[in-house]
């Protein structure tokens, strides 16, 4: 199916935009804004608001009609492959398929001090009425908290023999999280531990796609609940163990 944005009529393509141009407010700035919108494939672009917001800056609000459509049949949705299970199912699954407790370690790495997201996944109380990993009898969960250097995390993970590492990255300005996340992969590889662990990252600007691109096994974005993460870890670990058993 082809879809286009919808204002008040199917396929009208209506979109709202706002942006700033580093130009003095006036006819020329308005025209620049219009041309820009046209280049973006917007039909009938309307500059509905133009305002000076600093000596050489002009703020615009605009509407236009998007001329592109997306074929929904051709979309490929990147998402960690999991079958959703609840608290009880997960613990049962681990007992049956793993036969021992799963060890996980989590941290907000680098200079990041935003612990609320990681805590939501790891702490007892969990998130949105969904228990955190600490509450699962079949998980051993260590939460190292905020601003943990990658080196410290790797050392601790190896020390405890972690099956999974959970990294939270919330500050993403100027893409500061990208080198930090990459560095962790490099360190794990250097230690020869990368293949022995399920490596996961999460945060408001993290997508599964980005995570995979950076060398992680999975990524979790906004609104994630702990059971999704627990399901993934349990199933992925079971899959890997089965694989190893087959290989041997």
């Amino acid at each position, binding site marked *: 199916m082809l879809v286009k944005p919808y204002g008040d009529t199917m396929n009208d393509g209506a979109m709202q935009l*706002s942006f700033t141009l580093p130009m003095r407010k006036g006819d020329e700035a308005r025209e620049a804004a219009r041309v820009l919108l046209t280049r973006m494939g917007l039909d009938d672009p309307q500059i509905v*608001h133009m305002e000076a917001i600093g000596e050489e800056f002009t703020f615009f609000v605009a509407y236009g009609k998007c001329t592109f459509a997306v074929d929904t049949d051709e979309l490929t949705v990147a998402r960690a492959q999991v079958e959703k299970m609840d608290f009880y199912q997960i613990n049962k699954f681990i007992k049956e398929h793993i036969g021992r407790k799963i060890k996980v370690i989590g941290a907000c790495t680098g200079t990041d001090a935003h612990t609320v997201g990681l805590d939501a996944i790891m702490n007892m109380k969990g998130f949105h009425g969904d228990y955190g990993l600490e509450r699962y009898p079949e998980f051993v969960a260590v939460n190292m908290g905020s601003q943990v250097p990658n080196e410290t995390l790797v050392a601790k993970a190896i020390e405890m023999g972690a099956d999974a590492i959970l990294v939270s990255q919330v500050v993403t300005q100027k893409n500061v999280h990208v080198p930090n996340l990459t560095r962790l992969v490099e360190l794990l590889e250097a230690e020869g531990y990368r293949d022995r662990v399920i490596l996961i990252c999460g945060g408001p600007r993290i997508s599964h796609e980005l995570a995979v691109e950076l060398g992680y096994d999975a990524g979790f974005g906004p609104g994630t609940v702990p059971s999704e993460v627990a399901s993934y870890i349990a199933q992925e670990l079971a899959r890997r163990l089965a694989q190893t058993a087959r290989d041997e």
Partner: protein
Amino acid sequence: MSPDTMKIDRFELDAGMIERARAAARAITGSMQQHIDAHTTTAVERTVCRLLGINGVDEAGVPLPNVVVDAVADKGKLGQGVAYWLGSACLEHGITLDEAVLDLAIGKLDITACPRPKEEVEKALYPIAASAIERIIENKQKREALIKKLGLGQTPWLYVIVATGNIYEDMVQAKAAARQGADIIAVIRSTGQSLLDYVPYGATTEGFGGTYATQENFRLMRAALDEVGEEIGKYVRLVNYSSGLCMPEIAALGAMERLDLMLSDSMYGILFRDINMERTFVDQFFSRRILALGGLIINTGEDNYLTTDDAYESAHTVIASQFINEQFALAAGLSPWQIGLGHAFQMNPYMEDGLLNEIAQAQLIRQLFPEYPIKFMPPTKYMTGNIFFGHLLNAMFNFVSVLTGQSIHLLGMLTEAIHTPYLQDRHLSIENAKYIMNNARHLADEVVYAKDGRIEKRARAVLEKAVDLLDYIRSRGLMEALEEGTFAAVKRPRKGGKGYDGVVEKSPDYYNPFETLLPRRAPAGGDVTCW
């Protein structure tokens, strides 16, 4: 003060002043009643046709009520009333009403040819008229039953418009809005429909800035809202506009298709559509009697004054007009719970303490008309293409509404200055209102306004000016005042404007079966009678 009246009686107002206002308004509308009772209009007569079950269009697509009324008017015989001639023709030729209309439409019959004694005609038409009344009453009961079963939302009721121009698209949007939390859905009419001297026919898919009001569109939307209402467990109300050259016809169609509210103002058409005033005063009376019977709530249009006039300077004209609309409404037999007087949040947002003035105005109106379902209209005049700023004006409007206990709350759209609402605009506006009204739900119970403070003083000053204006209108006469530009800074000549040629003096043997079947307040100013 009981806890309940405390919520409403926030200001110390001079009761004598309020009584003076009502007395003036009663006098003003009372003298207009003579004109009203002495005239009929093409619109009223078409409405009689519709109530008698005349529907459909002729081969040229002209609605049959127009065909019938025009035929009678062409003969110069509208003074007796279209019902008189229809009844006469049926009796004369021993045919049914439908047959008479059909024959007339194909040019086979001159219904004005054979007048019959009025009593005979009355006898013949009474059962048909009574069954129309029956249908309207049944609708009213159906509504009451559904409300009892499903309930209504919390006040202020959130009122949103749909206006795609296409009734089927409107239905999608209306259902989405109801699911998002809207309590009342208005289908805005196409630009210019109010100047059509007929009601279009059938389901329509092409309107501009709105969707045509037709009986079929009413039916379709009513069904859509009943459906979504069952789903969400709330009776979702439907509104249209009983304004323009077809004011009473739309009222009748609305009553027949179970609409729940109608925009219905005694002067809006005059001021904003340049419709002749002699016509409008007659039309509004007949319309409202139908709405009274149907149990619809009317919404008056004082808010519109503030689109051309300044909301601070002319705040008193809104109040004065509300007193007039109130008296016209009572005269037409409407009950207090049906009288949704209108006002709006339209002060310049850059005014220091503007919010205090808006609170004063909204609270004053609440207190002057404690039993009425007051309609509060959103900011539109100072809305610009800056949707972010517009969203804030709407927020403060939502705040004032919940703080002052308004009843019918028309949601402002952040895109007001740009286009008729997109689906997402309506969503954002409903979200806005729900957040603020819930978050400030009982604030009204917790704040008291300082005695003789800025807010109370402003309310008193507005009331005083309103009373002075009413006294002035009373002394001048309402039509004369309208000629002078008293409201909305608009001047209209008494004999000018659209539709003046449709005003007809009733002859002494004028006959309209609904004259006696519809409610009105006894001319003496006593109780409502349903004769």
